[in-house]
């Protein structure tokens, strides 16, 4: 599984401020039993996120070009994701992917240079979304509270991702390992979303940090 400490270790340019800054009170909250909190919630920030999209004959060109520049081919199957996080590529729509990595380079420009000549569209979304990582034994219960997909361990496995509505917000959910999920929501809703997640997690106990 990816090591979240290295993911978080990107270099933030001056003033880059997360939508959740000041909102995450590190520590244990809610009910807990001897096993400790049921879920740990961390913010992943700063991240680079760039959407790439192509149409018709542009697609094959784009897949090749992204493979060349990222060392990773965007996954063909809908709702799957690939990569260890440096970067990770998530399918987000027909011929559309989101490339995500801890911020360390100007990913937008890298991809523009590589892909635009082939006709693809490249859009920087790195600031438009907030991302939480949820992990722990109760993580699937929290997903069950917020969203209507089948979150059973047999049904939603590592390498699957999905866009759905979670706590009434559009969310992109990426399964990293059996008990770890990365969730992306629109930046403006991040505070509301965090409140919903923590409320839902209270009965299992949760750790923020």
């Amino acid at each position, binding site marked *: 599984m990816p090591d979240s400490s290295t993911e978080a270790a990107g270099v933030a340019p001056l003033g880059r401020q997360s939508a959740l800054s000041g909102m995450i009170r590190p520590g244990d909250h809610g009910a807990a039993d001897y096993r400790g909190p049921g879920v740990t919630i961390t913010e992943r920030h700063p991240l680079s996120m760039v959407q790439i999209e192509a149409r018709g004959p542009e697609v094959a060109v784009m897949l090749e070009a992204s493979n060349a520049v990222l060392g990773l081919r965007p996954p063909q199957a809908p*709702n799957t994701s690939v990569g260890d996080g440096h970067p990770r590529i998530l399918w987000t729509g027909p011929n559309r992917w989101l490339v995500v990595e801890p911020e360390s380079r100007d990913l937008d420009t890298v991809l523009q240079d590589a892909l635009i000549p082939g006709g693809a569209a490249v859009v920087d979304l790195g600031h438009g979304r907030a991302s939480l990582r949820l992990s722990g034994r109760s993580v699937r219960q929290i997903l069950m509270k917020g969203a*209507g997909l089948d979150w059973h361990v047999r049904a939603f496995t590592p390498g699957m991702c999905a866009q759905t509505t979670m706590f009434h917000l559009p969310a992109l959910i990426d399964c990293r390992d059996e008990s770890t999920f990365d969730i992306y929501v629109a930046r403006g809703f991040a505070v509301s979303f965090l409140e919903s997640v923590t409320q839902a997690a209270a009965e299992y106990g949760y750790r923020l940090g």
Partner: protein
Amino acid sequence: MIRINCPYCGLRGHDEFSYIGDATKQRPASPADATAAEWHDFVYIRDNPRGPHQEIWQHIQGCRAFVRVLRNTLTHEVLATGLPQDDLLAGASGPAKTEEAKTGEAS
């Protein structure tokens, strides 16, 4: 919950979709040549069938694709789904598509 088989995302609850409406309405291909009656028909007039209805839903909380859905308006049963341009009645392989739908959840 009506469960709609998004051609990309599989079986999802209808609360992830936004309903657009009758899929059989063809926007006049050549706007200037279309008569007032044709425009009126496109914008305002509906078959409104009781039974199978081809309609467009947008998977707005998912992959944002527009999906054509053949759904029975009397039973709410989804008989088939496809891309916006597919004619679902033409290839009406209802049961087969439903089978596929059963396994399609979140895949």
